[in-house]
């Protein structure tokens, strides 16, 4: 039986006091301690941004790659070494901006990974520019007159692209978030958990107070059916006075691993490669 302490990392945390990432890290640790998998069998993959530092603060395998490029290495690692539980910790800029193309196509690919997007609706690491999810009218040092391009709606996009697990969490509700991440990991295939998260240093609009007034737990409503796609799309688009959190959409679908026949074989990483008999195809070239 593992505990949260088993996932403590010696690395010193470099986030601002009050950062929403603390809540997300704690929720993730809680989830991992309940998974009953040792740190060696978990791989956290990240890109660049404040959220991308997260893997260093949890004792697990970590691949911290390039800005926007968390998903490709995560998917490939899962494909070749399926014993790894692969979780991506990324941000709104990393995943929806710089890495938008990988977001689209890895939902289509549907490898069994879980993507936790620390969505603070702002660029923290570069000190306060708008991100793809910053609301219209939000003023920044760059968007002096306020943001004029429409915000990206990750949940709706994911549902339309066919993601099988689409959820939204809130960094200040660690227990609820931990449940969402667990459900995401248990889902076979691509799981998206967009996590609303205040940035006390650079986002003075979407504060703890701002979120607390608006969010509500969609799954508390017994009438809400996350298996109903049209209902889910409506919820995914709800933003403003009321913001739903919880499991927005669920669907079962074949994973990349199933469709590619990988599951029927031993893991690629276990394949002996010392003396592959290439001579058996020479006949095709004679």
């Amino acid at each position: 039986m593992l505990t949260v302490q088993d996932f403590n990392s010696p690395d010193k945390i470099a986030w601002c006091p009050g950062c929403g990432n603390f809540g997300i890290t704690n929720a993730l640790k809680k989830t991992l301690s309940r998974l009953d998998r040792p740190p060696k069998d978990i791989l956290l993959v990240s890109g660049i941004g404040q959220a991308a530092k997260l893997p260093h603060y949890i004792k697990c395998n970590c691949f911290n790659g390039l800005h926007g490029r968390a998903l490709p290495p995560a998917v490939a690692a899962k494909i070749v070494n399926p014993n790894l539980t692969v979780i991506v910790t990324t941000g709104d800029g990393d995943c929806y901006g710089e890495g938008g193309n990988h977001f689209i196509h890895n939902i289509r690919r549907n490898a069994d990974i879980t993507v936790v997007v620390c969505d603070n609706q702002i660029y923290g690491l570069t000190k306060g520019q708008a991100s793809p999810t910053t609301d219209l009218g939000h003023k920044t040092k760059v968007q002096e007159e306020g943001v004029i391009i429409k915000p990206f709606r990750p949940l709706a996009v994911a549902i339309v692209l066919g993601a099988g697990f689409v959820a939204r969490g809130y960094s200040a509700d660690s227990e609820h978030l931990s449940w969402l991440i667990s459900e995401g990991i248990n889902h076979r295939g691509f799981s998206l958990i967009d996590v609303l998260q205040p940035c006390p240093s650079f986002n003075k609009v979407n504060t703890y107070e701002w979120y607390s007034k608006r969010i509500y737990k969609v799954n508390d409503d017994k009438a809400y059916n996350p298996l109903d796609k049209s209902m889910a799309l409506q919820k995914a688009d709800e933003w403003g006075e009321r913001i739903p959190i919880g499991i927005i959409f669920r669907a079962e679908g074949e994973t990349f691993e199933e469709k590619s026949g990988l599951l029927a074989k031993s893991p690629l990483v276990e394949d002996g490669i010392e003396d592959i008999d290439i001579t058996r195809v020479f006949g095709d070239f004679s």
Partner: protein
Amino acid sequence: MQQEFTIKISGEAGQGMQTIGQALCAIYRACGLNIFANQDYMSRIRGGNNFFQLRVADTPVYASRHNADILVALDKASVDIHKAYLNTNGRIVLDKKKFGITGEQKVFFDVPMYAIAMEKAASEIFVNSVACGVLAAMTGVEFVLVAEAIKAIFRDKSEEIIKKNIEVAQAGYDFVAKSPRFEPSAIKKKDKPAAELLLNGNEAIALGAIRAGCKFYSAYPMTPSTSIMDTLAHYARGFNIIVEQAEDEIAAINMVIGASFAGVRAMTATSGGGFSLMVEGLSLAAMTETPVVIVDAQRPAPATGFPTRTEQGDLGFLIHAGHGEFARLVYAPGTIEEAFYLTVKAFNMAEKYQIPVLIMTDQYLADSYRNIGVFDTGKARVIRYIIPKQDSGKIQNYKRYAFTESGVSPRAIPSWINEPIYADSDEHTEEGHITEDAAVRIEMVKKRLHRKLSGLGKETEKPTAFNAGKADVMLVGFGSTFGLLREVTAMIKKTGFLHLSQLWPFPEKETLRLLKTAKRIITVENNASGQLAGLIRRQTGIKPDASILKFDGRPFDIDTLREEIKEEL
């Protein structure tokens, strides 16, 4: 005295030049002859002008000729475009009625190819098989070999299709036999060697990757690299390889890095434009010390350039690509054999030094076919440089980036060892955690650059030299020009050549030794600025006397280069 002839089959894209070209390769090889075939095609699916050029000889051949002995024109445009490239006594096989040509010329050999196709098979699509029969008869090949080749080429098609193709080929063959316009002239045939391969550079790279144990391949299709992916995809199931077409080249390189980090050998291939997108990933591979193999099948640039043509313009780009300073290897195979063996070596070296290894080819090598001896798998050994699974359980206090004298840290595979592994694109400590410590930074730079380069310096892929020390004039080239240099220097007295198949780290000592007594050094390069000449000067202090440069998107040919060298003498 070497006996040889060159056949050029030309027509619009979609007329099946490649199919008939492959059939002819099989036919002449069945005669025990050697072949070198290259393709020239336009960036379009239908129309335009494409050709397949086949050089046939009784001794091994390595490059293409300037002129053809027989041109088969499948459309009128081909007559106009290629008639200037005909040897004395050369012939143009054409269908005058179909092309609306009324005049008579000495070189014309009029064959009603289209009428034959219509009469025998009721479709003009069979015209390429008619041409195949015509060529076989003109070069004195027995028809039974033509029938066998057609059966082999169309083995996936219905029996009826095969029968029709053989019938039209027979009709073309018989037409030549009856025609008073042409006397078949054949070159001496030999017995076909027992074991041989016929393949192109891209196929050799794909087979090398399979042999090397590549388990994950991801790429975005880009000419002229795409047939590497096609070949690997064809064999993926049989060899348990995942071939994943990426959404873009950025995804491709990052997937390859992720797969490699997780424990398997992985590769991608592209051309210059796609490689440009991969450059940040190249730097990531270096920083995270993740082995990767990247193929750049060059084509003329900048930007989209000539998508289907050839150039060696990325040399400077490849040895410098990536932000920051780190060790890398750049190979440039000169032959189809070298493409295979160097690909296996690339995987071994990438894993041994935990670096990116680049394989630089070009459209000419990628798409050219030659008959070669079977690959010796004994010379293509896989040597692994990871902590094996059975030893992983006992590892304690593992540091992914532990400082060592060689700069290479023992590499553990995630989930095999009992501790987590941290890899980072930020500057990091030995444990892999982010740091801004100046002293650690200095050690890490030395590790990734100086220490690894020092090891790589002892494992240089030796250049190939001919007549070095004896020749007055040394030609110097890299990559796909090997065969050209070899044949041209054999033709001109007092010339020799130096061919580099490793460009980085630059083989300084070997180059100095092999060039020091040459009276005159001429680089031969498929680019406009003499990039190799500049590199030699920078790395050795030797200033080549001249450069013969070709940057029209077409490969060199033996005859033109020979004339150009004579001018230089």
